[in-house]
C-alpha cells in the first residue's frame, strides 16, 4: 500500500504560547512535561525489619488504578459493591496513576491500548505492581491469532501476579489480591525493579509493535 501519514499528536508539538504578561513562552511538551531519565532500581532498606515493615504497609494498602481493558474491566466493578467488598482487604480504586500502586490489566490488550497502558504504568510511582487477569494476558487466549492483540503481557511490562480464567470471577480476583499480598510481604514483588533492570529489552519489545512511537522513552 502507499505511504501512510504518521499522525503526530498536536498536543506534543513544539509551540509558542502567550504568557499572562504578554510575553512569548516556548513550550516543547516532550521536553517540558515529561522526564527522559531512566527508571531507577529501588534499593531496599538496610535493616531488614524496616523493609519488612514497609512491605507490610504496602501490602495492606493496595490502590488500584482505574484502568479497564477488555472484558475483565466489567468484573472489577462488583469488587467494590457490598457483596464482594474489596475495601476490607485495603483495596481501593484511584483515578490517576500518580496515586495508584497496582495496575490491573483486565483482559486482552490491543496494540493501541498497550501504548496507553505503558504510559500509565510508567507514570505510577514506585513501588508499583501489575496484576494480569485472564488467559488473554497469559498466552493470547481466544485472540491468539489476532493481528491486533498481544499474546504475552510479560514481554511488554513486568507482571507480578496472574489470575487465570476467562474471565476470572470477582472471587478469583480477591484470591489474586491475597496472592499478591503474600508476594509483597515476602519481598518477591519486584516487578518495578525488573522493569528498571531490563529496560532496554522491554522498550525494544514495545517499540517492535507500537509503530507510531511519538512519546518519550520514559515518562513519569
Amino acid at each position, binding site marked *: *500500500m502507499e505511504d*501512510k501519514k504518521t499522525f503526530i499528536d498536536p498536543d506534543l508539538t513544539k509551540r509558542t504560547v502567550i504568557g499572562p504578561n504578554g510575553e512569548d513562552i516556548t513550550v516543547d511538551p516532550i521536553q517540558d512535561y515529561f522526564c527522559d531519565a531512566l527508571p531507577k532500581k529501588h534499593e531496599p532498606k538496610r535493616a531488614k525489619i524496616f523493609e519488612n515493615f514497609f512491605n507490610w504497609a504496602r501490602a495492606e494498602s493496595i490502590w488500584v488504578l482505574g484502568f479497564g481493558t477488555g472484558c475483565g474491566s466489567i468484573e472489577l466493578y462488583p469488587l467494590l459493591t457490598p457483596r464482594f467488598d474489596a475495601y476490607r482487604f485495603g483495596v481501593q480504586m484511584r483515578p490517576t496513576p500518580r496515586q495508584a500502586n497496582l495496575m490491573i490489566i483486565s483482559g486482552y490488550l490491543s496494540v*493501541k491500548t498497550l501504548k496507553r497502558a505503558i504510559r500509565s504504568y510508567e507514570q505510577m510511582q514506585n513501588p508499583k505492581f501489575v496484576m494480569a487477569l485472564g488467559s488473554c494476558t497469559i*498466552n493470547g487466549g481466544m485472540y491468539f*491469532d489476532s493481528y491486533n*492483540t*498481544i499474546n504475552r503481557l510479560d514481554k511488554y511490562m513486568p507482571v507480578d501476579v496472574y489470575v487465570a480464567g476467562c474471565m476470572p470471577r470477582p472471587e478469583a480476583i480477591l484470591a489474586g489480591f491475597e496472592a499478591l499480598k503474600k508476594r509483597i510481604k515476602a519481598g518477591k514483588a519486584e516487578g518495578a525493579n525488573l522493569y528498571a533492570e531490563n529496560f532496554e529489552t522491554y522498550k525494544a519489545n514495545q517499540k517492535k509493535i507500537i509503530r507510531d512511537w511519538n512519546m518519550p522513552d520514559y515518562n513519569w
Partner: protein
Amino acid sequence: MEKIIQHLQGAFDVKAVKKQRNDLYFVTVGKDQAIPAVTYLRDAEGFSHLVMITVADWMEKGVFELNYIVHNYQLHADISICTNIDREEATMHSAHHLWEQAWTYQRELKEMYGIEFPGSPRVDESFNLEGWDNIPPMRREFDTLKYANETFFPRPGRVSHDPATYMKQKLYPNE
C-alpha cells in the same frame, strides 16, 4: 415496502432484489447509482437513519460488496443498498455529505480494507491501527495467524484440536 422497491426499480438500474424479511430488503445496484439510491431513500422515502456501512470481501469474485443499510422509523423497516466494487482498485463515492456518521465508517473501511473514499473528511487518519504498515488486515489475503506469530510472542505449548474428533475421543473412545 413493495411500493418503495418498485419506486427504486423505476428510478434506478436495479440488478437484483432479495427479500430477507417483510421489513428487510437487499437491493443491488451499480457502483455509480448506490449513493443516489441511498440519497433517494433518505430524502424521498423517509429512510432517515443510517444503520451501518459494511463490506463483504468476495475474494473469489474479485469484488468488495458494500452495503448501505438505512432504516425508516415510521415503517420500522430496513433497506440495504448493495453494490460491488473492484477489489484491486477499491474506490467508492463518499457518503459523508448525507450522514456525519459515514465519516467514521469510511475511515474504518479505509483502514481495514483499503477502500478509498475521496473527499471524505479525516479519512486518512488512523482509526484503530496506529501506524499500520502492512496490507489492510481485514482483507482475506492477510494471514492473521502468520502475522501474529511473527509480531507478537506466542507462548509455546498451545495445541488446538478439531472439535469433532476431540469430543469423540473424549466421550465415545470405543466407537
